[in-house]
């Protein structure tokens, strides 16, 4: 991994700016774009079957317990320097999700690069619940 690809420890963007942008929902001209493939994972992983539904979910506070993962360059960029992509884990109901997005300065648009379930990313909802109840087996303690 080159120096340029070392993940940044802090988010590149204020998440509130991204969430605010999602308010202009998919029916109207919006400055939020779904990259190819995002619609399919949103539908199959979260039953959010349209762009409108996906943005409305985000706008309604659907990305719960957001946890910053990393900031890395958008590798397929033509821009120099390339835009930085922020990634977060979130919880929604019984699922843990992963979202990554970046802001394209050249077009002043937010681009959602990934939006999918990520149950393998860390403790599951069940682990959270067991830990909260003090019932997590000792062998799993500290597995985060």
């Amino acid at each position, binding site marked *: 991994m080159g120096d340029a690809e070392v993940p940044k420890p802090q988010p590149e963007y204020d998440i509130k700016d991204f969430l605010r942008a999602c308010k202009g929902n*998919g*029916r109207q001209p919006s400055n939020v*774009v*779904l*990259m*190819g*493939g*995002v*619609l*399919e994972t949103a*539908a199959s992983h979260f039953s959010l*079957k*349209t*762009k*409108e539904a996906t943005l409305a979910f985000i706008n309604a506070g659907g990305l719960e317990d957001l946890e910053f993962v990393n900031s890395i360059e958008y590798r*397929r*960029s*033509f821009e120099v320097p390339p835009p930085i992509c922020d990634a977060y884990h979130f919880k929604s109901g019984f699922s843990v999700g992963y979202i990554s997005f970046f802001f*394209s300065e*050249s*077009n002043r*648009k937010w*681009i959602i690069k990934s939006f999918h379930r990520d149950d393998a990313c860390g403790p599951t909802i069940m682990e959270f619940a067991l830990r909260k109840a003090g019932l997590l087996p000792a062998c799993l303690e500290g597995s985060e």
Partner: protein
Amino acid sequence: MEKVICSYCGKDTVSIKDHEIEISEPYAESSTVKIQERVCSHCGFSEDDGSNDLVIQKELAALKRVSMVNVLDELNAMGHTTASMERALGLPARTIARWKNERSMSPSAAALALMRMIRTFPWLLAVADMHFEGEAARNILLQHAAKELVDIHLERPDVL
């Protein structure tokens, strides 16, 4: 004709690529719809086309209707009459009948969610019939859980 511009690089070197996705609704068969992806030959960026939502919503509306009709048919086949379900759930008379029969009417998302839950756990109708009283609800749940366990044991003695 409006020029299609790449949302990322801003160039008009965008071509439309058709591809099919499968969408499904519980208690309805799945369906394949053709959606469009905009692919930019300059920067390689691919994005969802704005017209996809309408195509998907139209197909989803049809699938939801099928789902509601299937759910109600199956509940009727189990012996739950439309009138008895309306009474237990406190719905105005003919509400469920209209969900089932009026093709021009799309049942609301809440109505569909309610009927799917009842199709999945028909004993919820008995709970509703008891005005959702806590102890009665628990007894009904336990009775059905016990019955399920007995059924599983009879079908697969090795499991339990």
